[in-house]
């Protein structure tokens, strides 16, 4: 055990220390050593890097890091979204990167339900995208305290979408987005994108890997046999990241792979894999082409719930996400320009969160579900029907004078639900730039003495347009079908149109 000191190759006056006990933690291509205070790690590439690779690392730890710091919400991105390397070192001809240590929430505090075998292990995404680990009958199922609920995975997907959005805004491509490169914590509803030293600067540094099988875009596999110099060869780029992002979101929400169905394309295993993910790739839930649908009799018993799209179809994610899944896995599967961009995923996920209802079954494992627009809404996960009336608020914005137009944004109301600024005003957009002031509720909905009411907490100019009654702060207004509630008289203030369903 010895403490080694290494100097930065960016600024020779900076140095780092790490503990070398002879057995570093081995990653795919790097050996990882911890600093004595465990605030950062020094991760050395096992094989020496060439000039281009070093140049890329230097840019990632200088230019692109500076871009993030100077851009919007730098603390959010550097603490809550990325583990971004912030310096580079060299020792014995090997290049290393300095990376902030992972937050303790990304290590299992319990792990398996039955023993401590993975306690303290990293929460890589794979644990949460496979159906078996959440099946209580499975001998190696994760403890329910580790799994979070369905909303956890919306927040995780939102974080990943924002991370990809930011990278793409900076002109970068991740090139190997997969469940191995994302740490997730369903408990605190957070996700961190890690292993960022492989980022691709399009046109400048070609990608070194084509990605991880489950996430490689079909066009990359389809042209894999061509030489790197061939103009037809497609390497990982922002569009292929968008395929990987769609697959990740699908897997986090639905715990199965969107393209791994029952179709056999070739009797040779490797060829079959290549075709199933490449030129023949086909959505398992394609509405018209059933060729690749899941053969449910071939599922392992632990996978029979989430693995079966008939039990929980992709449409259980609601209208906004369903539309994007169709674009990603039907229209855009072989047409990269059609794929939804990260920003669209973020918006659709956020809008879907507003459609979510709590399940009234207290032992429901997912606890939340998306209202499915039917007469008899029920939780798709445990089957419990919705009890009582269900108010729906559609958001409208002022087009001009007295003309209001729909936002295409709906709020499903439940007891003790909050209303936020981003609902009340067009001027506040729900994204990573929101400050703490913007995240305070401006009102809330409750079921009070057999009536649904909205209580005004912080909005000025709230008014019931049917009765023309003002609703000052700390006053409430009853929600009735056909009700029109102006939320704010400020510019950009929205109107809620109320419908009560499930009567």
């Amino acid at each position, binding site marked *: 055990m010895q403490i080694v000191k290494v100097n930065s190759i960016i600024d020779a006056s900076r140095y780092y220390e790490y503990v070398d006990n002879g057995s570093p933690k081995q990653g795919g291509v790097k050996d990882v050593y911890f600093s004595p205070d465990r605030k950062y790690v020094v991760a050395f590439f096992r094989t020496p890097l060439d000039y281009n690779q070093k140049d890329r690392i230097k840019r990632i730890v200088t230019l692109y890091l500076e871009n993030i710091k100077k851009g919007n919400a730098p603390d959010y991105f550097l603490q809550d979204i990325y583990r971004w390397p912030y310096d580079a070192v060299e020792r014995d001809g090997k290049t290393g990167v300095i990376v902030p240590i992972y937050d303790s929430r990304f290590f299992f505090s319990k792990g398996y339900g039955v023993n401590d075998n993975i306690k303290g292990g990293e929460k890589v995404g794979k644990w949460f995208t496979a159906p078996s*680990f959440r099946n209580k009958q499975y001998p*190696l199922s994760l403890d329910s305290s580790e799994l979070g609920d369905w909303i956890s995975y919306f927040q995780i997907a939102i974080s990943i979408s924002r991370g990809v959005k930011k990278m793409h805004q900076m002109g970068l491509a991740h090139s190997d987005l997969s469940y191995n490169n994302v740490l997730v914590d369903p408990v605190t509803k957070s996700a961190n994108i890690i292993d960022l030293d492989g980022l691709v600067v399009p046109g400048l540094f070609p990608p070194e890997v084509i990605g991880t099988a489950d996430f490689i875009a079909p066009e990359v596999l389809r042209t894999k046999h061509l030489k790197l110099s061939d103009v037809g060869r497609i390497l990982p780029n922002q569009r292929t990241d968008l395929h990987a992002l769609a697959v990740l979101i699908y897997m986090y929400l639905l715990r199965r792979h969107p393209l791994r169905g029952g179709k*056999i394309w070739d009797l040779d*295993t490797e060829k*079959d894999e290549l075709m199933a993910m490449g030129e023949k790739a086909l959505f398992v839930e394609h509405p018209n082409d059933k060729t690749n649908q899941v053969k449910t009799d*071939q599922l392992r018993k632990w996978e029979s719930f989430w693995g079966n799209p008939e039990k929980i179809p992709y449409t259980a994610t609601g209208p906004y996400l369903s539309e994007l899944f169709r674009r990603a896995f039907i229209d855009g599967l072989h047409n990269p320009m059609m794929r939804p961009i990260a920003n669209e995923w973020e918006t659709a996920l956020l809008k879907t969160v507003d459609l979510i209802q709590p399940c009234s079954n207290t032992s429901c494992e997912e606890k939340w579900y998306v209202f499915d627009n039917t007469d008899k809404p029920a939780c798709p996960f445990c089957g419990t029907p919705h009890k009582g009336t269900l108010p729906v608020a559609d958001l409208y914005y002022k087009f001009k004078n007295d003309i209001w137009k729909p936002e295409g944004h709906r709020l499903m109301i439940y007891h003790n639900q909050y209303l936020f600024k981003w609902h009340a005003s067009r001027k506040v957009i729900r994204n990573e730039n929101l400050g703490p002031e913007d995240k305070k509720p401006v009102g809330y909905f409750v079921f009070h003495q057999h009536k649904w009411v909205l209580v005004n907490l912080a909005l000025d100019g709230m008014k019931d347009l049917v009765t023309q009654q003002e609703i000052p702060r700390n006053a409430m207004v009853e929600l009735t079908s056909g009700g029109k509630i102006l939320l704010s008289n400020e510019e950009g203030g929205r109107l809620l149109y109320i419908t009560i369903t499930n009567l």
Partner: protein
Amino acid sequence: MRRLPVYLLLDTSGSMSGEPIEAVKNGVQMMIHSLRQNPQAIETAFVSIITFDTTAIQVIPLTDLASFQMVDLKARGVTAMGAALHLLADKLQNEVASTTPEQKGDWKPLVFIMTDGGPTDDWQRGHNKLKAVNKGLIVGCAAGHGADDTVLKQITNSVVRLDNADSESISKFFQWVTASISTTSTKVEESGKEVTGLEQLPPPPSKLVIIA
């Protein structure tokens, strides 16, 4: 989902009694414990154990890591390696699924044969049968001075040698087997490619000498 079948053929002849057989049992248990920390291995790897002494027995059929339960092993008798190869060939035929137009088959199997001596039966008969059915990678391990690696070398190009059949060496060997299974299951899942040679497995520890 495709499985990665892993067969461990373990010598339980009389010469293994005492420290070596205890080390083998411990090694298998440590291996399962470690593999259960790797979600990709848990999803893909299935493990079977075939022991050979005077006879060959499949003590554990091809089993997923979650359900795997180690059994007690006793060292006695001679070294019927030929019978073990014959039994392995049977199991590869019956337990490993090949791809059909209706169903995805398994990945190519990974076989580890560990012995501290030399076959006492007609190993070539078993070997001939195995040759006809095996498509996967076989790794031979000659454990200790008494181990005859000439036979292993005829069975596979991938042979490693342990200088001693003591608990430390055997434990190192199982650590390497664990890493090999981990790497292979990750590789098949991440790259869609199969492992075909020793050079694609992680480097063996210093006490393991690759001799072929």
